[in-house]
């Protein structure tokens, strides 16, 4: 993700250290986060979309997939705030239900890369030596494929479909994560408390679990939020290409793609649902930037 600091977060470092004495790293971080207007705005936007998607059946009575030709291409109105598409389906209902799909693609993809990448990065950084060498060479090779193209190649192997898109984006995110976690572990491994744990007879698995992992958690959380934004964008992008959600599933990228052919007659079909994608991704980016400034300014 972006590597510079956000100006909206300039107050991040001003928490009075004497006042915060005795508080945990997490408590100080959350205090900083609350003072960051951009991050709070981002969190609110994300929360709104998550709630709206979860409560879709209670917010709208319209079926997101039911074809109703008599109300085809209805312009935005009180009855249909975002209008209807070429099949007469209410777009607000499709966007609300689609949010669940698009957000879960991002979440599951990130979960897949976390499950593979975090343990690999932890062990690789902690053990070092030949294992680390082999893992890092594979990671370097993996990173030689430009982001989205790797996901496309994986979808090409597995075939189009939402589940395969999640796997493709998840696997595509592994090398970057391994590199980050490993780097963090290398700096923690050299600290005295890890030595102390080793001297007192702690096994490798125990030390990684109780001493190393908690100390590299903050940068992982920060990066996960920023990666979520990227994963959602990749997911909707692949669905837009027709490689992800298949009709009539109300996925955000697929909705925008469906409206493409009718841009002249019904501009709202593609453009208004796209705003939902943009706002959600912007929300995650604002929140991620805020988390980074609050918890790990070194990542800037």
């Amino acid at each position, binding site marked *: *993700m*972006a590597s510079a600091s956000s100006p909206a977060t300039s107050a991040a470092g001003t928490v009075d250290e004497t006042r915060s004495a005795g508080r945990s790293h997490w408590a100080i971080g959350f205090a900083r986060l609350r003072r960051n207007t951009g991050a709070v705005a981002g969190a609110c936007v994300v929360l709104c979309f998550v709630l709206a998607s979860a409560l879709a059946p209670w917010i709208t009575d319209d079926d997101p997939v039911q074809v109703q030709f008599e109300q085809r291409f209805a312009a935005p109105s009180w009855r249909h705030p975002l209008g209807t598409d070429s099949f007469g389906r209410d777009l607000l209902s499709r966007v609300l239900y689609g949010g669940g799909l698009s957000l879960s693609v991002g979440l599951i993809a990130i979960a897949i890369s976390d499950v593979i990448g975090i343990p690999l990065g932890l062990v690789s950084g902690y053990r070092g030596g030949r294992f680390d060498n082999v893992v890092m*060479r594979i990671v370097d*090779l993996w990173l030689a494929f430009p982001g989205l*193209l790797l996901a496309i190649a994986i979808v090409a192997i597995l075939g189009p479909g939402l589940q395969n898109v999640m796997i493709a984006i998840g696997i595509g995110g592994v090398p970057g994560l391994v590199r980050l976690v490993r780097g963090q572990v290398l700096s923690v491994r050299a600290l005295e408390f890890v030595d102390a744990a080793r001297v007192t007879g702690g096994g490798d698995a125990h030390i990684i679990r109780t001493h190393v992992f908690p100390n590299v958690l903050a940068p992982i959380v920060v990066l996960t939020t920023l990666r979520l934004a990227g994963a959602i964008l990749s997911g*909707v992008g692949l669905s837009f290409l027709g490689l992800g959600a298949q009709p009539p599933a109300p996925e955000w990228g697929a909705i925008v793609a469906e409206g493409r052919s009718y841009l002249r007659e019904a501009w709202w079909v593609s453009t208004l649902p796209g705003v939902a*994608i943009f706002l959600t991704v912007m929300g995650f980016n604002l929140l991620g930037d805020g988390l980074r400034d609050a918890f790990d300014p070194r990542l800037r």
Partner: protein
Amino acid sequence: MVYVARRLLHLVPVLLGISFLVFLLVHLVPGDPVRIMLQDVGSPEQVARVREQLGLDRPIYVQYVTFVVRAAQGDFGRSIHTRRPVAQEIRYRMPFTIRMAVAATLVAVALGIVLGAIAAMHHQSALDYGTMVIALAGVSLPSFWFGLVLILIFSLHLRWLPPTGADSALHLILPAITLGSGAAAIIARLTRSSMLEVLRQDYVRTARAKGVPERRMVYRHALKNAMIPVISIVGLQFASLLGGAVIVETVFGWPGIGRLAVDAIFNRDIPVIQAVVLVAAIIFVLVNLLVDLLYGWLDPRIRYT
């Protein structure tokens, strides 16, 4: 020279690794790759012919060596779908993608550096905050949606620019803006932080104390030195634009290799996908190497670390 030679030598295992992964693509397909490529409609004779054509009936190490030797000669086999040589298709399509990626990089660099410099010069002002919000919006834009919005406004409504096609320079404007906007945002953020860093340096303070006008100092001293880290990100962005081009080419009906890859996926045309991924990865690696070398030339400290 030694540095350049060492870097070039490092390239060999990377290229071999890339070629191996791309080669594996066909073997990672769950089930029989030939049946999947023929979408389960081929007769046994057809299946056997395609298997032989792809060399899948030979031992795997023979297949890999043949693949590498042929690829090194620019031979990627024939498309399962069109039966035409894949290399011919790539040679025709590649210049379109390169043209779009170069134009997008120009847009990204011009926009990114100007926005980043403005933000740094007006640090912690409304202008700084506004510029950085625009930059954040830039990285949050889904390119396919942004492209459609641009088509709606500039092609369908104002009728200033053509919506699709690749016949003239005018056709390049909207795709370049669409593809370049995300990279512009990243470059703007890096330019800003890099310039803020440089503006805090002693020599800038000295220049300021000597009475060098602010504007001249920014352009003559700060911007020049702040550009060093920016160059590395420009190279990376150019390379990753090749991946992003897949979506933008689809939106604007641009006949590049991205569009070729997407069509190949629907046709399960594995040789075409292999060739596109291989060529894109090699370009990606070469551009990164070029950037590293340029970086070492601009900042000699890097060569010795």
